[in-house]
C-alpha cells in the first residue's frame, strides 16, 4: 500500500507538491477549506512575466493530481503526534495516520478596509488588486465606471506598514501594479494612470522590462509618494492626496478609480493552530522555517514540512519551486535518509 502524505491547503503549492509526490509513489491527501482548488491564483487573470492565464496553470495542476485524495470544504480539527508520525483529524470525521505532513496554507490578502483612510468599502470607486483581477476574469463590478478618465494604483497597502500590523514587503505588489496598470491601459486607452509608490521593487526576471514598457508604451506615470488620504468631491470623484516627494510638494489628483495593492499577510488562525502543535511562528506572524537559506521547507518538528507562502511572501514560480523541493525533502525523510 502506498504511503499517505497529508497536504494542508489546496493552493498551487499544495497541488504542485501533490503532483510530485504522486510521481514519487505516495498518496497525497489534500485538505482544502474552500470549495475549489487553486487558492488565490484561481482568482487571478494573468500571471507575469509571460502573461499566461492563471487558469491554465490551475487546470494543468488539477489534471495532474486527479489520482490524489482531495477533501474540499474540509478543515483540520486537530493533529496528534505519534512516536513515528501524526494523526490528522478532519472536520468530516476522517482521521489520517501519516508519517509526513506538508503545510501549504498560504497567506491571507490584507483586508484593505483596515486602512480606513483609503475608504475601501466607503467610497464607490475604490477596489483592490484582487477585485481588479476578478473583473479582468469577467466578473461584474459596478465600482469600475465605463470610461474612467484617471485611475490610480496605491502600492504597499498593508505592507511595510507598522500601523497595519505588517512591517514586511509583500514582494509581488509592485510588479502586479505595473502589470495591472498596463492591462487597464489596454482596456481604457484614454485613461491617465498613476502609480503611487514608496520604492519600486522590481527584482525578478523581466520585471524591469515591464517597467520600461509601462513608461514607454503605455505612458503610466509613477509618482513617488505614499497616498495618505482619499476624499470625495461633490461630483463623487475620488480626490487622492500624496506628497510628490521628488518635487517636495503636496499633490492632489481626482480619479475615477483607485486600485489598492493589498499585501500578503500571515493568517493568524494558522499561527494559532501551529502553536498548539508546537510549530514555531516567526516574528512576522508567518510559520518559521528551520532556517531561511537551506531549510525553508523544514519546520522545527520532524515530519512537518512547508511549501509556499505559509512561511512568507512568495511569487508564483518561487512557490512552485518550493513545492517541488518540499516533495523531494519529504521523499528523503520517508526513506529515512
Amino acid at each position: 500500500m502506498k504511503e499517505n502524505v497529508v497536504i494542508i491547503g489546496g493552493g498551487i503549492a499544495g497541488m504542485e507538491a501533490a503532483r510530485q509526490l504522486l510521481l514519487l509513489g505516495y498518496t497525497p491527501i489534500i485538505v482544502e477549506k474552500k470549495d475549489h482548488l487553486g487558492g488565490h491564483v484561481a482568482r487571478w487573470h494573468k500571471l507575469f512575466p509571460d502573461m499566461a492565464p492563471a487558469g491554465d496553470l490551475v487546470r494543468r495542476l488539477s489534471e495532474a493530481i486527479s489520482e490524489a485524495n482531495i477533501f474540499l470544504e474540509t478543515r483540520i480539527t486537530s493533529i496528534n503526534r505519534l512516536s513515528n508520525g501524526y494523526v490528522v483529524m478532519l472536520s468530516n470525521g476522517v482521521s489520517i495516520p501519516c508519517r509526513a505532513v506538508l503545510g501549504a496554507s498560504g497567506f491571507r490578502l490584507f483586508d484593505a478596509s483596515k486602512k480606513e483612510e483609503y475608504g475601501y468599502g466607503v467610497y464607490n470607486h475604490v477596489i483592490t488588486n484582487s477585485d481588479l483581477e476578478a473583473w479582468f476574469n469577467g466578473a461584474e463590478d459596478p465600482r469600475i465606471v465605463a470610461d474612467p478618465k484617471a485611475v490610480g494604483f496605491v502600492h504597499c497597502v498593508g505592507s511595510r506598514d507598522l500601523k497595519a500590523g505588517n512591517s514586511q514587503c509583500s514582494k509581488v505588489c509592485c510588479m502586479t501594479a505595473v502589470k495591472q496598470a498596463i492591462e487597464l491601459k489596454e482596456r481604457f486607452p484614454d485613461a491617465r494612470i498613476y502609480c503611487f509608490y514608496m520604492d519600486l521593487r522590481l527584482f525578478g526576471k523581466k520585471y524591469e522590462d515591464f517597467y520600461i514598457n509601462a513608461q514607454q508604451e503605455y505612458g503610466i506615470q509613477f509618482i513617488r509618494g505614499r497616498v495618505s488620504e482619499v476624499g470625495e468631491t461633490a461630483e463623487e470623484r475620488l480626490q487622492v492626496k500624496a506628497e510628490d516627494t521628488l518635487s517636495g510638494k503636496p499633490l492632489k489628483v481626482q480619479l475615477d478609480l483607485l486600485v489598492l495593492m493589498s499585501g500578503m499577510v500571515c493568517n493568524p488562525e494558522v499561527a494559532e493552530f501551529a502553536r498548539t502543535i508546537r510549530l514555531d511562528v516567526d516574528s512576522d506572524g508567518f510559520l518559521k522555517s528551520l532556517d531561511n537559506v537551506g531549510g525553508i521547507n523544514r519546520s522545527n518538528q520532524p515530519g512537518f514540512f512547508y511549501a509556499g507562502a505559509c512561511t512568507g511572501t512568495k511569487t508564483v514560480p518561487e512557490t512552485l519551486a518550493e513545492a517541488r523541493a518540499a516533495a523531494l525533502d519529504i521523499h528523503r525523510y520517508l526513506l529515512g535518509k
Partner: protein
Amino acid sequence: MIDRIPSGFHPFVLPFLAGMIFVLSYCVYGIIKILVQLPGEDRRRFYLSLVTPKTVLKNIRDIFCDCLFHVKLWKRNRLLGYMHSSIAFGWFMLIVLGHVEVILFLPHRIRLFYYPIFFNYFVAETDSTIQGSLLFFLMDFFLLVVLSGIVLAMVKRVRSRLFGMRRTARPSLTNQIGLYCLWAIFPLRLLAESFTAHISGGSFLTVPANWVFRQFLGNDLNMLPTWWAYSIVLGVFMVVLPFSRYMHIPAEMMLIPMRNAGLKIRNARKGFARVQVYSCPNCGVCIDACPMSVNKANIKDCTVYLTRQLRRGNERRITEISDKCLLCGKCQAVCQVGVDGPGIRILNRAERNYALKPDYSSIDGTAIGRASAGGRVAYYGGCMTQLVPSIGRSVTSLLEKAGIDYRWIDRDGGICCGRPMWTAGRLKEAEEIVRKNEELIRATGAVTLVVSCPICYRMFRESYHLPDIEVVHYVPYIQALIAEGKLQVEHDDICYAYHDPCELGRGCQLYEEPRQLLSQVVRLSEAEKNRAESVCCGGSLGSLSLSFAQRENMTRAALENLYHSKADAIATACPLCQATFSRYADRPVRDIAEIVDLHAKANKQNKQAI
C-alpha cells in the same frame, strides 16, 4: 462632672499642643501663600464665592460628602468606603462630641483647646445623668467605629483586592510614619480612656476594659504613661502631617471651595495647582484606573506619583510623567478628591519653552468654507475625520436624508481645532489657532455648527467664542432630527458595545445621548467599565511621548474591556478611537453616525421639499 485637676493642665498635653500649633501655623502660612499666588481675578472670585449663600451651601455639602462620608469611595467599593468614612467621620465626631462635653459640663474650660481631646483625664464623674451617659456612649461608639476602620486599613495593606484595588501606591517614608501614628492614635486613646474610666466615667467599651485591667493590674500606674503616649503620637502625627499624604485633610477643605468658586489651574506649581497637589490622598485608586498601567513600566506614571514628585520637586520625573499621560481624565473621574491630573500635566508641559515660534497669519481664510454653497447649517469634520472618511460621509448622508440644507465647510481641508496644541501645553499658540479658526468659521455665515469629532467639540465648548453660532455635537443633533420626524430609523437585532471616547464622555459629559441614539437602531450591551470609567483606546493625542509599541497593550486592554460585553461589534464616536481600535479589533468598529445611517431612511416629505 468636676475638674479633677484644678489647674486644668498637665505637662503630657505639651506634645499634642506643640504638634497642633505647628500644623495650624503651617496651614495658615500655606493658605496665605496660596491666596497670594492666585491671580487677582481668581482671588476676587474665590472671596465672592465664600459670601455667596449658594456656593457656601454647596461647599458644606461637598465637604461632608467628600471629606467625611467619602461618597465616591462607597460607590466604588463598600469596604473601601466604610474604611475611609469610618476613620474620617468617626474622628470628626469624636472631636465634635469632645467639644460638646466640655461646653456642657465644664464651659469655663472651652478656651483650652486641648481640653476636648483629653477630657477624660481632666474630669471626675460625680453623678451619672442621662445626658452624660448618652455622650459617653456616643464617644465609645465612635471610637469603636474608628477602630474598626483602622483594623480594615491594616487588612488593606496586605489584601488590597478585598477593597477592589489591585494595586496601591507605595508609601513614602513620611507617609509610613504618618500611617503608623494614625494606626496607634486610636488604640492608645482606648487604652488611656479605659485606664481612667473608673474616675472619669465611660461607656460600653471603656468601662468593661477598665474593669478587666483593674482585675490584674490593681493600680493606676499605667494611666499617665498611656495619656503621655497618646499625646506624643498625636503630636508626631501633626508634625509629620504637612510632609505626608495626610496633608490632604486640610488641603481638601481648601480645594472644595476653590473648585466650587470655578477656579482653574493657571500655573503649574502655584496657587490652585498647589492645592490640588496637596489634596492627593495617595490612595492609589488612579493606578488601576490609568490605562497606562497595563504596562508594568508605566505604573509609576499615574497621577498619584505625579503629585508625589511635584511635592518632592523631582523635575526629571515631573517632565516624564507629565509628557507620557494620555490625558484621558479617568484618574480625575475616579479620584475621591477629584485631583485634576490632566490639568496639572498640561500646565507643566506649558512651563517649557517652545523654540519654534509658529505663525498662522499666512493661513488663507478662503481655504476653509470653499465648499460653502448651501444653507446655514455647517458641518465641521475636523482634521482627524479626513483619515476616517466613513464618519464624514455618514454624518452628511444623514443630514441629506433629513433634508437639511447644509454645507461641509472643511471637506477640502481646514485647520486644526487647537486642542492638540493646547494639550501639548502650548497654550498661547493654541489660542492663536482658536482665534484663526473662529474667524474662518464666522466667515461661512453659519448659524448652527455640527461637529463630529469629540476632540474638536470639547475645544469648541471650552475655548471658542462664537456667540451667534450654536455649536452642537452630531449625536444630539441627529436625535432631534429623529424626534422631529425628519429622519426615520429602523431597529436591527445586531448587538453593539459602545465605547465612550474620553473627550466626549469625561470631556463633554455626553454619556447617555449616544446610548439613547444607538438603542433606537441596534441592541446595546455595556462594556465592563463604561461611562466615566471607560478605558482610553490608547491612541490619544494627549500623550507626547508614548511610542506606538507602548500603546498597543493599552489598546488591547481597552478592547478586552469592550469584548466583555460579548457584543458583535463596537460602536464609538471618535475618529481617533475608531482608527486605533480597528488596528487590533477582532470585530467591526463603527462610528455611531455610520450605524445610524445604515438604519435611517429619509422622510418622504423631505424628498418633496428638496
